[in-house]
């Protein structure tokens, strides 16, 4: 719960009970990751499941442990959009990672080029 602040800054009056509930939710999600590690799914499937659980955990921690939910909505959007953009921008090189493993797909020697 957030009191209406006089100076615009968030004030935190969350109850200990609410903190405990969030803590238990994060603990359960962390345990779920360990359970997923022992399931018989493909590496890609396991990675996807673990990523989603980690994002859920991080979301709870960001919103309630770090009180982002109690800040102004503009700040929440600033953090999420700015950080999200930076993190997404890092993902451009994955195709090259697959190339390292399986080689360039559909590669054909160019006409007139002598292969070494």
């Amino acid at each position, binding site marked *: 719960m957030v009191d209406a*602040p006089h*100076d*615009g*800054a968030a*004030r*935190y*009056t*969350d109850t*200990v009970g609410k*903190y*405990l509930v969030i*803590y238990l939710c*994060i*603990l359960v999600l*962390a345990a779920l*990751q*360990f359970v*997923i*590690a*022992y399931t018989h799914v493909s*590496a890609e499937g*396991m*990675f996807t499941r*673990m*990523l989603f*659980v*980690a994002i859920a*955990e*991080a979301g709870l*921690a*960001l919103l309630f*442990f*770090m009180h982002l939910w109690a*800040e*102004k909505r*503009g*700040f929440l959007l*600033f*953090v999420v959009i*700015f*950080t999200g953009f*930076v*993190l997404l921008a*890092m*993902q451009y*090189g*994955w195709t*090259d*990672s*697959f*190339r*390292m*493993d399986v080689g360039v797909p559909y590669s054909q020697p160019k006409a007139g080029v002598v292969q070494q």
Partner: protein
Amino acid sequence: MSQADLTMEGHAPGLTVGIPPFSIPAKKMAIWLFIIADAATFAACLVAYGFIRNGTPSWPQPFHSITNVALMTFILLTSSLTMLLAVRAAHVGDKASAFRWMMITAVLGIAFGLLHIREWMGLIDEGMTLFHNPWGTPLFGAAFFSITGLHLTHVTGGVVALLAVGVRYNGGRYNASDLEVTGLYWHFVDLVWMFVVPFIYLLNLSH
């Protein structure tokens, strides 16, 4: 607040202090900007790790047991709760309780660090170093020690900050907002661990 009140003392007339962005105090805004930058650092490390893991055939899976990492996770998550309780106590003016919770958080951080070092020593005893890995590609050792080492450095810095800020808070030099800023950093360290555990440990678990 009048325009005169906003004029910075000692500066040229007309230079005013504006309302802080998003109405967030400067210290808190500074730690949030640090957290965003640090999140990019950790994300870059994890993406680079994923890149080489994906591009390297027969990536090793050296972890036989989850007991240690599960215990470390439990300790770090619990330390976030105790940090929350410290900040809450500070906000309601319960100084003794805030200090006590902060010291408990620091102790949990130290326990996490010791468990981490114990795990490192076990792996080093098995022959894994930054540049050598008995199970295959040496990139695994480099990636593992770099990422977990960076995280452990953050935990160590956080413990020092918790002790320093806690003692100064108890001595009356710091206030609740200083505890809150330290708490934000500590929660961030916890948040990073939520991604390190599945990607570095659990995806490399030998079944």
